[in-house]
């Protein structure tokens, strides 16, 4: 369990580094089942179980799933694979952990996903022709994050091989490899703090919210997650909300800078899920 002690003082730094590793090692058990309408063979395909990294993307971890399930699909009608959870098509360009926080965090484990090879939902999903598409999307989000944090200077000062190292770290689930380069993007020392915090807030059935938000106010006072949520949601009601980042419900008094440094996804964004709180649901029912 990650404890969020977030004073951000020097003495906490070793402990904080452990948090980076804990976050990196977060995994979700998933059960992949072929959609009934896609089954072409007489024998029913067995479900396929995987423990997938929160920080990865589905196209990077589903090669074996496709290989296993596509044996049961009509080859002539086999299109691009896509995933669904209870009627919700899952966007491959969101990190897996974000998708889970959005749709699966109240589900029983393993997370039961339906695999489709037909009827691609063109309106809801982007096509993913190859892993290269995931890579270019990933690098683009990193660049956007750095444009917010350092006016793009940190990422522009890198060489192409550094970009590759970041990507290979994510693709091959290598923490040390990834952080050997990512530390340059996450550096905050003295004057060199983040200009803006790269973040997006996700709510059910709404477009993600993204605004400019500084780590401190005009007086130099530290801004917290509560300030951030209040700035993007006009009627943010703390008691009625459940806030999830990386599967964790952080204290709303946590400084946004600390969150950005420690709970960002590899794409350098804080992906924040906002849901109505379960207790609120219960109260309104009673």
């Amino acid at each position, binding site marked *: 369990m990650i404890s969020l002690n977030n004073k951000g003082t020097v003495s906490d730094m070793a402990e904080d580094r452990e948090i980076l590793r804990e976050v990196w090692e977060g995994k979700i058990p998933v059960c992949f089942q072929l959609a009934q309408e896609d089954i072409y063979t007489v024998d029913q395909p067995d479900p396929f179980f995987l423990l997938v990294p929160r920080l990865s993307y589905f196209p990077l971890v589903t090669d074996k799933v496709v290989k296993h399930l596509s044996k049961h699909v009509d080859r002539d009608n086999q299109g691009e694979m896509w995933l669904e959870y209870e009627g919700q098509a899952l966007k491959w360009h969101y990190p897996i952990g974000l998708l889970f926080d959005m749709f699966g965090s109240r589900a029983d484990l393993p997370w039961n996903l339906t695999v489709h090879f037909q009827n691609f939902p063109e309106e809801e999903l982007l096509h993913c022709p190859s892993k290269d598409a995931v890579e270019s999307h990933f690098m*683009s*989000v990193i*660049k*956007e994050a750095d*444009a917010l944090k350092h006016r*793009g200077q940190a990422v522009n000062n890198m060489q192409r091989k550094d970009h590759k190292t970041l990507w290979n770290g994510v693709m091959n689930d290598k923490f040390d490899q990834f952080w050997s380069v990512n530390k340059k993007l996450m550096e905050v020392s003295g004057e060199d703090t983040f200009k803006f915090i790269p973040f997006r807030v996700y709510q059910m059935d709404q477009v993600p*919210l*993204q*605004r400019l938000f500084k780590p401190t106010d005009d007086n130099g006072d530290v801004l917290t997650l509560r300030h951030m949520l209040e700035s993007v949601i006009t009627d943010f009601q703390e008691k009625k909300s459940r806030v999830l980042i990386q599967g964790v419900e952080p204290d709303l008094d946590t400084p946004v800078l600390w969150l950005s440094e420690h709970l960002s996804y590899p794409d350098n964004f804080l992906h924040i899920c906002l849901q109505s709180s379960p207790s609120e649901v219960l109260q309104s029912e009673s």
Partner: protein
Amino acid sequence: MSEGVEVINDEGPAQEQKEASVKSPDSNDANEKITSKPTTSSSGKQKNPSKVDILLKHAGDAPIMSKRKWTVDRTKKISWVADFIKKYIKSESSESLFLYVNQSFAPAPDTDLGSIFDCFGSDGKLVLHYCRTQAWG
């Protein structure tokens, strides 16, 4: 170059043939959804908060658009802008077109313009570069 603002109206494809819509003289068949309504002034006064100004600049061998500044609904997606440009420059819809912010990153096609404008717009407009190949990154 003339940079008068035109309004791309916010109706979906189902309503693209509104009787009031007037085709822009230089858009030809580029897009039925364009109305030539000079109601939004380019001086910045009385801006409609539900719309943003975008400035489209070509990069690489992509054709130049004779009209570069447009006013677009905040809720429109990047993919919608790409389709609009493709029609305008008479590019096949199957051809790829890349849109860049800050000449640096390409937002995901399902990103809404409002968010990008809020974070990366300057001087009241959002500059987007378009090109046929991956120009940056």
